[in-house]
C-alpha cells in the first residue's frame, strides 16, 4: 500500500495563498540579498545621490526660461538612479545566478518561474523608489525644490513604470552577457546612454546635434515623461514618449524571449 501511494500520489495544485507566499518570500529574499550586497546597494543608491548633491544642489537658485534647474535635474537623477538599480540588479544579478548554477537549482524545484522574475522586478523597483524618495527629500530640504504631493506620487508611479520597462533590458543583458563581464557591459550601456539623454546635464544645455540623437534612446523618453510631471517636457507629445518606451520594452522582451528559446533548444 505504501508503494502505490509513493508511485501515484499527485499533489493537489497550489492554493492561491501558497502561491502568494512564494511570491512574497522570493521578493523578500531578493530584496534582502541586494540590500546586503554592499557593492550593489551602496553604489546604486550612493551614486545618483552624490551626483545630485554635487550638480543638482549647486543649481538651487538657477532658473532658465521658467524652469527650476534643481527640480529639472531631480527628474534626471531620479531616472538615472532607477535605471541603474534595474540594470545592475537584474542584468548583472541574473547573469551571475545563471552562471553559478543557482537558477538551475531553482528550476529543478517546483518554484514557479514568474515568482523569480517578479521578485527581480519588484526588488529593482523597490530600490528605485528608495533612490527617488531620498533624492526628493534632499531636493526639497537643500535644493529649494518645491513639489506637490501629487507630483511626488506621480514620480513614484513613473519610477515603477521605468523599472518594469528597463527590467526587459536587464533580462536581455543577463541572457547575452557572460557573468564576469555583465557589470562592465551594463556600465558601458548605462553611462553613455544616461549622459546622451540628459540625465546628468539637462539636455537643453547640450549641443544641438546631441539633442537630435537623444530621441533614439529609451532613457530620453523615460526622462521626458518624468519631466512632464513638472511640466518641463519637450515639444514632443506625451503619447509619443509612451509609445517609444513601450515599444522599447517589447523589443527587449521579444529579443530576450528569442534568445531564451534558442538557449533552451541547445540546452
Amino acid at each position, binding site marked *: 500500500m*505504501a*508503494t502505490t501511494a*509513493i*508511485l*501515484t*500520489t*499527485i*499533489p*493537489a*495544485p*497550489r492554493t492561491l495563498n*501558497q502561491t502568494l*507566499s*512564494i511570491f512574497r*518570500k*522570493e521578493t523578500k*529574499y531578493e530584496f*534582502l*540579498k541586494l540590500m*546586503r*550586497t554592499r557593492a550593489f546597494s551602496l553604489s546604486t543608491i550612493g551614486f545618483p545621490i552624490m551626483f545630485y548633491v554635487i550638480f543638482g544642489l549647486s543649481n538651487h537658485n538657477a532658473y532658465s526660461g521658467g524652469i527650476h534647474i534643481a527640480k529639472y535635474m531631480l527628474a534626471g537623477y531620479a531616472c538615472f538612479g532607477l535605471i541603474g538599480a534595474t540594470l545592475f540588479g537584474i542584468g548583472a544579478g541574473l547573469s551571475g*545566478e545563471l*552562471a*553559478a*548554477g*543557482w537558477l*538551475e*537549482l531553482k*528550476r*529543478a*524545484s*517546483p*518554484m*514557479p518561474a514568474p515568482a523569480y522574475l517578479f521578485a527581480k522586478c519588484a526588488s529593482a523597483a523597490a530600490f528605485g523608489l528608495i533612490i527617488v524618495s531620498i533624492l526628493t527629500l534632499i531636493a526639497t530640504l537643500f535644493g529649494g525644490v518645491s513639489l506637490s504631493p501629487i507630483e511626488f506620487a506621480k514620480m513614484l508611479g513613473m519610477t515603477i513604470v521605468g523599472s518594469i520597462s528597463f527590467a526587459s533590458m536587464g533580462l536581455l543583458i543577463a541572457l547575452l552577457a557572460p557573468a564576469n563581464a555583465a557589470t562592465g557591459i551594463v556600465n558601458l550601456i548605462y553611462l553613455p546612454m544616461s549622459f546622451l539623454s540628459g540625465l546628468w546635464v539637462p539636455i537643453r544645455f547640450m549641443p544641438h546635434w546631441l539633442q537630435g540623437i537623444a530621441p533614439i534612446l529609451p532613457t530620453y523618453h523615460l526622462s521626458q515623461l518624468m519631466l512632464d510631471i513638472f511640466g518641463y517636457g519637450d515639444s514632443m507629445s506625451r503619447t509619443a514618449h509612451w509609445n517609444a518606451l513601450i515599444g522599447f520594452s517589447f523589443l527587449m522582451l521579444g529579443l530576450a524571449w528569442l534568445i531564451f528559446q534558442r538557449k533552451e533548444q*541547445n*540546452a
Partner: protein
Amino acid sequence: MPLSAIAYETETLPAETHASALPSVATLTNITKNYGTTKALDGLSLTLRPGEIVALLGPNGAGKSTTIKILLGLIAPTSGAARVFGSNPREATTRTRVGAMLQVARILETLRVREHLDLFRSYYPNPLPVAEILRIAQLQGIEDRPFSQLSGGQKQRVLFALALCGNPDLIFLDEPTVGLDIESRRTLWHQIRHLAKQGKTILFTTHYLEEADALANRIIVINKGRVIAEGTPAEIKRIGGARTIRCCTRLSLDFLETLPTVTSATLDNHTTQIIASHAESVVREMLLRDETLSNLEIVNPALEDAFLALTKN
C-alpha cells in the same frame, strides 16, 4: 568488455529479484540527447525503484549530468521517454516530489542558512520541518550564518539540505560529498541510508568509487551516453575480473602459470603474486603442492579496477 558486462547484467541475484518486483519510481527508456552534432546520451535506459540507492558512475563526459537533468525535467531528451512518478518530469507538479542537489558554484552568499531553507520550503506543498532538515543535514548551530561565511563542507551540506526541503520521495545527488571530510562524508552516507529506509529513492553520482561501493545497492556504469554495466557493487567488481593472490611459495612461476584461470605470476622480493579469476581453486592446488606456503593473502578486485576495465575505450 561490454559483452561480459551484459552477461553479468542478465544474472539475477536474490536482492535484485526483490527490487525488480517493485514498480518503478522513475524510468528512462531509450533516451538520446544531442547537443548539435555531439551525442550526450545514446539510447540510455534505466529504472529506479522505491527505497533504492543507485550510484551513477562514469568518466567525465559520459552523460551523468545530462541523465540527471533529464530526470529533473531541466532539459528535454531528443528522443525516448522519461517518466517520473508516472508523469512527465518537464511538468512542474512532478518536481514537488523530487529533491535535487546539483553542482552549484555558489548560491546567494548574503542569505543565511535559515533564510535559504525558508525560501525553498515555501515551494513545496508538504515541506519537512526546519529543525528536521537542520538535523539531517547537520546544520545545527550554523543556521543563522550567511552562506558566504560557511566552510566548503558546510556549504555542501546546505545544498544537501535544500534537496530535502520538500520531503521528496526521489532525491538526486550530483557529487554530494565533494569537499567533505571523511567524518562528514560518513555521516552523510548514514543519512542517505536512513532516507532510503523510509522508502525514498536516491540516485547519486560520484567520483569516489569507494563511495559507490559503500553506499549503493546498485551501480549503473555509463560511458559515451550508454549503460555499459549494471548490478550490485559485488557484481560490478567481478566484471573487473581477477583477484590477486600473494604468498611466499616454493612453486615455480612456470608451474603456477599453468594452473587454471591464472593470467600471470610474478616474483618480487620473495613474494609471489598471482592474478587469477578463480582464486580459491588456485590456492587449493598450491596448498596441496607446497606445505611451506606462507603469508597468504587474497585481494579482491577493487571497484576501481572494474570501473577502469569497463570504461577504457
